[in-house]
């Protein structure tokens, strides 16, 4: 087998060819305009744009569309590529949503590992005061990269769960637009390469990339801007696809309020991703153009009369947070959906308040559009805005509270069992509670003025993201692992993973908040030992390494169990969801016959209730 028959390899070659071509185009244009040939800002921007296009062409994600423009029909090819080993389909363009879901999920997991290792590097530096091995500039790069790589990993992880599960859960053959689905996955890959290249040059503002700092720093910023732009494009196209899939491809009898609750979470998430993502794309595009062409959007510029004829730095913060706050709900809503999905299965009880949960996801998403200003309490914008944004932010607690009470109501009086997915679900609730309770403290302008940019924010954020994404993501991996591979994971290793990671995280999160209240700033490479935070930092670092070690156990577990795990059978969890009524691993065409929904999804433990009727199996 030729190495270049793998789409990924061709794509990477295409990327670097495109990079060279793009830079050459910029240099020739500059010469034609009578300027010096090389300008690193313009050169890299041109290079990255061409490299991304080069990757997408070479990987083959646009081949069918290009044929359509010439009027050539392109029928679907189902199954692994002809004449190649089955695994190769995961490294090439494939239109099956299950393959794309795995591609998303695995890429997301890899990025989680990379982003996590960046954190370990600078955590080691912070373990004691004084500069040990990371110079401040490098420290800043690691810190900033940790953020964006981890955020990208979350977006990809969410995409993985959504792409794999939503069509299965609604009994659809595939997504509404399979080619668009593949495109939306693959555009992440050149973006990740671009993001990694940025490390060669460095960038030092933290993930928020506020101007004017981001307008003055090294050229690494340009790569960040364009990488995030591509990842944002992926979010937009992916969510568009999911919304159409959920609105038009449900089976007979599945009204919106009979969809699995995870689909509601994805619907709410997709609404945010479809719309708000444009604003961060625009904001980063404007930063890139201000750096490249000097268009003054954000940097003030004064004329001889002392008037500001240039831009305003605060404009960036508005545009940025209009996406980046709702984005937090993109990160957590799918995870909260997983919690609601798994609890009834392991409590053998109906989901408490299904409709309220479904609507609370939508409510969180919609209120989320009105709260961005709480990130700017200290920015110097109009003081009356603080009150407005404080009230709207505190409103988010209402639908979130609905979810918590529903989870409690579901657990209450249930016949609970505690396999690893259930443990991670409960761990997620405990961690998300820490994150949730520290939220109002930051949402209240009066307290935020003191805690802004402190380690308290770091603690709050990581608790919400671990509770809202990482723990439920791991729960989902353990839960659907038998459906994906056909084999069970090792329960003992899974439990060890949980009992290392969860207390580790509690310690880390609470210690971060403590450090913040003691006066530790958020993004600095060194601190004054007189603050008394040194032991706290040591604790955080140790807890961080414990979490990292537990995740290594998980990887070992997932790899070995795929070979030696016990055969799982169709439905090891006795779930009512349609994807558990078909063989594991799921066949190429998931459902041999269209399914029909005849009852409520979560009536666990109610005698004689049925959710789905599988065609052909209804007689016995």
């Amino acid at each position, binding site marked *: 087998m030729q190495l270049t028959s793998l789409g990924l390899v061709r794509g990477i070659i295409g990327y670097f060819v495109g990079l060279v071509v793009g830079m050459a185009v910029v240099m020739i244009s500059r010469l034609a305009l009578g300027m010096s040939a090389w300008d690193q800002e313009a050169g890299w921007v041109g290079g990255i744009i061409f490299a991304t296009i080069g990757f997408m062409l070479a990987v083959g994600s646009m081949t069918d569309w290009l044929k359509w*423009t010439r*009027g050539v029909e392109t029928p679907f090819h189902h199954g692994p590529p002809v004449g190649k080993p089955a695994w190769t389909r995961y490294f090439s363009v494939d239109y099956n949503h299950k393959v794309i879901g795995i591609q998303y999920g695995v890429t997301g997991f890899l990025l989680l590992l990379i982003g996590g290792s960046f954190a370990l590097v600078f955590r080691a530096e912070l373990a004691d005061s004084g500069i040990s091995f990371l110079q401040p500039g490098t420290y800043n790069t690691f810190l900033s990269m940790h953020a964006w790589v981890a955020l990208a990993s979350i977006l990809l992880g969410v995409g993985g769960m959504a792409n794999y599960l939503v069509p299965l859960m609604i009994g659809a053959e595939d997504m*509404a*637009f399979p080619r*668009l689905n593949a495109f939306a996955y693959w555009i992440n890959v050149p973006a990740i390469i671009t993001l990694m290249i940025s490390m060669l040059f460095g960038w030092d503002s933290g993930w928020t990339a506020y101007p004017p700092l981001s307008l003055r720093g090294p050229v690494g910023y340009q790569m960040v801007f364009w990488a995030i732009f591509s990842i944002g494009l992926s979010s*937009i196209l992916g969510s*568009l*696809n999911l*919304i*159409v899939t959920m*609105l*038009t*491809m449900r089976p007979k009898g599945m009204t919106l309020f009979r969809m699995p609750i995870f689909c509601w979470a994805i619907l709410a998430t997709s609404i945010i991703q*479809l*719309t*708000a*993502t*444009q*604003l961060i*794309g*625009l*904001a980063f595009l*404007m930063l890139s*153009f*201000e750096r490249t*062409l*000097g*268009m*003054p*959007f954000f940097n003030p*510029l004064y*004329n*001889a*009369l002392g*008037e500001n*004829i*240039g*831009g*305003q730095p605060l*404009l960036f913060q*508005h*545009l940025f947070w*209009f996406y980046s706050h709702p984005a937090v709900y993109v990160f957590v809503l799918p995870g909260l959906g997983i919690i609601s999905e798994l609890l009834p299965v392991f409590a053998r009880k109906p989901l408490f308040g299904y409709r309220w949960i479904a609507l609370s996801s939508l409510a969180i998403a919609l209120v989320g559009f009105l709260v961005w200003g709480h990130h700017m309490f200290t920015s110097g914008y109009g003081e009356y805005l603080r009150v407005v944004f404080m009230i709207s932010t505190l409103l988010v607690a209402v639908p979130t509270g609905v979810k918590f009470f529903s989870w409690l109501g579901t657990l209450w009086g249930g016949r609970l069992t505690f396999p690893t997915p259930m443990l991670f679900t409960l761990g997620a609730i405990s961690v998300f509670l820490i994150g949730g309770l520290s939220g109002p403290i930051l949402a209240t302008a009066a307290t935020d003025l003191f805690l802004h940019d402190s380690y308290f924010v770091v603690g709050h954020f990581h608790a919400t993201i671990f509770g809202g994404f990482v723990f439920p993501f791991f729960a989902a991996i353990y839960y659907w692992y038998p459906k994906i591979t056909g084999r069970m994971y090792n329960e003992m290793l899974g439990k060890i993973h949980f009992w290392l990671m969860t207390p580790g995280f509690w310690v880390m999160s609470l210690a971060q908040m403590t450090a913040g209240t003691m006066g530790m700033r958020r993004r600095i490479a060194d601190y004054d030992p007189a603050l008394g935070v040194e032991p706290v930092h040591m604790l955080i670092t140790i807890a961080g390494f414990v979490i990292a070690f537990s995740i290594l156990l998980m990887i070992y577990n997932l790899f070995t169990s795929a070979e030696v795990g016990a055969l799982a059978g169709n439905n090891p969890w006795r779930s009512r969801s349609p994807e558990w009524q078909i063989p594991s691993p799921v066949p190429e065409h998931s459902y041999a016959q269209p399914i029909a929904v005849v009852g409520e999804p979560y009536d666990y433990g109610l005698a004689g209730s049925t959710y789905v009727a599988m065609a052909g199996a209804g007689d016995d």
Partner: protein
Amino acid sequence: MTAITTGVHAVAAHHEAHDDYAVQLRRNRLGLWLFFISEAFLFGGLLATRFYLWGDTRPELDQAIGLIVTSVLLLSSVSMRLAETAMEKGNRQLFSIFILLTAFLGLVFLGGVVIFEWGLIPALYQGHLTPWGDKYGAVVFAMTGMHALHVVSGIVFIFIVWNLARKGHFSPQRHWGVESCAIYWHYVDVVWIFFYPALYLIGNAVHLSH
């Protein structure tokens, strides 16, 4: 007997293909409109930028040019709708004429933006704004630039559709390619409907000293 069964099967198969097209058409339409909603936030962000930075002021732009390019784009939208109507009625010749007219008007609009608003060819028209000069230049170039990018893609789309129609790819019943191209073009016009007053009409014209 055999002939009848085959006939029934053929009808069933035909119905299936017919349904498949209708189902996919519904999805395509919904998908395209969701894309428009998404893009509305991009253009909305640009409008927000304009109001945030300019407030109640605007640069001195040539009003004649603004009115002319706006009218040209409006005309192109009318002509695009006429092209689609011609396709619906099965009049291929009229379709070709109108869709090419649309592309021509689109190119005229583009020329108006590039030559007159931007002053990119000083031999023809001396523009007084530069993207790097001040906030007026920056926002004018950002808004018209992002819009022009969509016009260019729309014109490419038109030529693809025109070429496919020439080869006989569409029918009065089935022409999603034409429909999507048409409503995309109208969408680009809708964006300009909001950009035109924001750039040319709202606020007091100021002349800044540098």
